[in-house]
C-alpha cells in the first residue's frame, strides 16, 4: 500500500515538473544559450516553482538563476549539441548501485517477499538499461563528432582541442569498462538464473560491443588528429615560407637538378606532344579517309559576288602622296623638255639646271621608272642610256651614276614603229 501511494505521489510530482519544462520552454532555452535566466521574463511564482523542481538554481547571491546541469545535459542530448554533450561514464557508481540492488533483491528473496524482490529486479533492469543507454549515447556522440570533423567548432585549434577532449573521454570510458569484473558479478548472482542472465550474459554482450566500438572510434580519432596536425603544420609552413621569401628576395636554393640523385619532386619530364596525320600509304585507310573528307561540313552560304568586295585600299599619308605626285610631275616635265629639245640629255644635269631639290638617287629612280612605265611605242622613241660602272671587280653589281634620255632621230622612227 505504502509503495503504491509513494509511486502515485512520484507520478504526480514528476508529471507536474516535466510540464514546467514545457511551460517555460522558451525561457529555459534562452538560459541554455546565454547561461543565465532572464528573471524579468517570468513571474516570481514560476521562478519559485522552477527552483523547487530543481530545474533552476542560484549558485550564490550575486549570480543570476542558472539551469541545473542535469537539465543542461538533457537539452544538449536532445539537440545533439556536441559542444555541450558531456561524457560522464561513472561506471564505478553504477557498479556500486548494482551491488546494492542485488543485495536488496537477495534479502527480499530470502525473506520470501517476492513482490519486493520483483521490484528490485525491475530496478536492477532499469539501472542496467540506463547504463547501457548512457554508454550508447556517449559512443554515438563520439562517432557523430568524428564524422562531422568536429564541425561544431570552426577553428582548427578548437578542433584539435575538441579532439583531445574526445580522446580523454574515450580513455575514461575504456577505464570505466575495465572496472566491470565479471567474475565478481558471477559470484554476486550466485545461482539466480534471471540475475545471471541480466548481469552476466546480457551485460557482457553489451559491454563487448561498446568496447569494440570505442576502440574503433579511438583509432579513428587518432587518425583525424594526425590529419588536423598535418593541416596545422602545412598552414604554418606556408605562412612561414612566404614570410621568409618576402624577407629574402634574393634567396636561391641549390640546383637540385644537378645532383647525382635528383629528388623526384624536381624530376618532372618535359611534356611530349603526340601528333598524327592522315596517311595514304595504306590502301585500306583510303576509304575511311575519303569518308572523313565527305563528312567534313560543307561551307554554308553562297559565295560572295566578287564585286561586293572593294579593292584593298591602303590608307596613304597625304603628304607622302603629294610629294610622290610632285616628283612624278617634275620627271614628266623633264621628259617633255627632252622631247622639245630644250633639256640636256643627262638627267642629273637637268636636275642641277632646274635647281630642283630632289635627292639625285630618287630622281634617277623616278626617271628610269617613268621610262619603264611608258607604252611600248613611246618607249622606243625615247632612248634611255644608263651611265654605269661595276661596283667592284669582285662581283657583278653595277652602279648607275647618271642616265641620258634622248629622243631618237626621226629616221629611226619607222624602224622603231
Amino acid at each position, binding site marked *: 500500500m505504502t509503495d503504491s501511494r509513494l509511486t502515485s505521489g512520484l507520478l504526480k510530482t514528476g508529471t507536474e515538473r516535466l510540464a514546467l519544462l514545457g511551460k517555460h520552454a522558451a525561457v529555459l532555452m534562452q538560459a541554455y544559450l546565454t547561461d543565465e535566466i532572464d528573471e524579468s521574463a517570468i513571474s516570481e511564482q514560476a521562478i519559485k516553482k522552477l527552483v523547487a523542481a530543481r530545474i533552476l538554481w542560484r549558485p550564490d547571491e550575486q549570480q543570476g538563476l542558472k539551469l541545473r546541469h542535469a537539465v543542461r545535459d538533457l537539452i544538449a542530448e536532445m539537440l545533439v549539441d556536441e559542444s555541450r554533450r558531456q561524457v560522464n561514464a561513472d561506471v564505478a557508481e553504477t557498479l556500486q548501485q548494482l551491488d546494492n540492488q542485488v543485495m536488496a533483491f537477495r534479502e527480499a528473496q530470502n525473506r520470501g517477499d517476492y513482490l519486493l524482490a520483483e521490484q528490485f529486479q525491475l530496478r536492477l533492469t532499469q539501472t542496467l538499461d540506463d547504463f547501457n543507454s548512457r554508454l550508447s549515447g556517449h559512443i554515438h556522440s563520439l562517432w557523430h563528432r568524428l564524422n562531422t570533423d568536429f564541425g561544431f567548432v570552426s577553428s582548427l*585549434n578548437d578542433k584539435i582541442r575538441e579532439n583531445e577532449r574526445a580522446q580523454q573521454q574515450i580513455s575514461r570510458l575504456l577505464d570505466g569498462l575495465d572496472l566491470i569484473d565479471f567474475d565478481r558479478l558471477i559470484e554476486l548472482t550466485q545461482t539466480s538464473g534471471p540475475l545471471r542472465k541480466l548481469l552476466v550474459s546480457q551485460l557482457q554482450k553489451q559491454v563487448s560491443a561498446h568496447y569494440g566500438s570505442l576502440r574503433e572510434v579511438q583509432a579513428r580519432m587518432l587518425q583525424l588528429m594526425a590529419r588536423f596536425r598535418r593541416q596545422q603544420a*602545412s598552414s604554418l609552413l606556408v605562412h612561414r615560407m612566404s614570410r*621568409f621569401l618576402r624577407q629574402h628576395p634574393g634567396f636561391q636554393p641549390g*640546383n*637540385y*637538378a644537378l645532383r647525382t640523385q635528383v629528388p*623526384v619532386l624536381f624530376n*618532372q*619530364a618535359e*611534356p611530349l606532344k603526340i601528333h598524327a596525320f592522315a596517311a595514304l600509304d595504306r590502301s585500306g585507310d583510303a576509304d575511311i579517309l575519303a569518308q572523313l573528307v565527305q563528312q567534313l561540313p560543307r561551307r554554308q552560304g553562297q559565295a560572295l559576288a566578287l564585286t561586293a568586295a572593294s579593292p584593298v585600299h591602303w590608307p596613304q599619308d597625304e603628304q607622302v602622296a603629294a610629294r610622290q605626285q610632285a616628283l612624278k610631275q617634275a620627271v614628266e616635265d623633264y621628259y617633255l623638255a627632252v622631247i622639245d629639245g630644250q633639256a640636256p640629255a643627262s638627267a642629273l644635269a637637268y636636275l642641277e639646271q632646274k635647281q630642283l631639290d630632289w635627292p639625285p638617287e630618287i630622281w634617277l629612280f623616278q626617271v628610269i621608272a617613268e621610262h619603264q612605265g611608258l607604252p611600248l611605242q613611246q618607249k622606243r622613241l625615247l632612248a634611255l642610256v644608263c651611265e654605269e660602272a661595276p661596283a667592284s671587280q669582285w662581283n657583278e653589281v653595277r652602279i648607275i651614276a647618271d642616265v641620258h634620255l634622248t629622243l631618237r632621230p626621226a629616221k629611226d622612227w619607222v624602224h622603231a614603229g
Partner: protein
Amino acid sequence: MTLSGPLIERLLSGAFICQVTDEDGFRHLQDEATREAIDAYLKPLNRRVASNADQTLFFVAYVHLDQSAREQLSQQLGITLSSLLPLLEWVQLVQEALGRDTLLTAGDVLKPAEFVLKSEDNQSLRERVQLLASDRFFNSQSDALDSQIKQIFRRLKEQGYLLQPHADKQVYLVTSKIDYLIDLIRFIRDEENLPLEDDEPQQEGLL
C-alpha cells in the same frame, strides 16, 4: 592491369594526374602493376611514372638524367622557384578571404565571384589581390578587381592548380597539385635548413 592510351597521352603531355583531375586514371595509377606496365611502355622515351610521397598525384619523370634532361630540369626549377612566392601568397589570400584556418585541399570548391565579393568590401584584401595580380606570375594588366581575379584563376588553371569542370561555369576545383606545392616548400625548408620554426626571425644568428 590495363594500359590506357589516353592516360599515357595525358601523362606524357605533362599533366598531373590526381583524384580531382582524372579519377579513373588516378585509380589505375594507384595499382602498382599498371604503373610498371606504363613504365615499361615509357622506357624507350626515357620516361617513367613518378608520384609525390603520399601518392596523391602522379606525373612523368626522366629515367636517366642525361645532360639535356638536367638542363631542362634546371630551367624548370628556376621557373618553379620564381612562382613560389605568388603561389603561397595566393594560398594565404584564399584562406583569409574565405575566413578559414586550414589550407586549401584537393577537392575544395572555389568561386571567383565569391572572392570578388569578399575583396570588394575589404580594402586590405583588395590591395593584396591587386599586388598579387600584377605579379609577373599572374601578369594582369587590368585595374578592375573582377578581371584581376579572373586572371589569377586563369593562370592557376593553366598551371594545373585548379580545374574548371565546366567551361561555361565560373566554378573551380582545387587539384592535388597543391600537395605538390607544399611538398616542394617542405623539401626546400629541410634541404636548405631554413630557420622557419620560430615565429620571429632569429636576428641573433645573423649578427
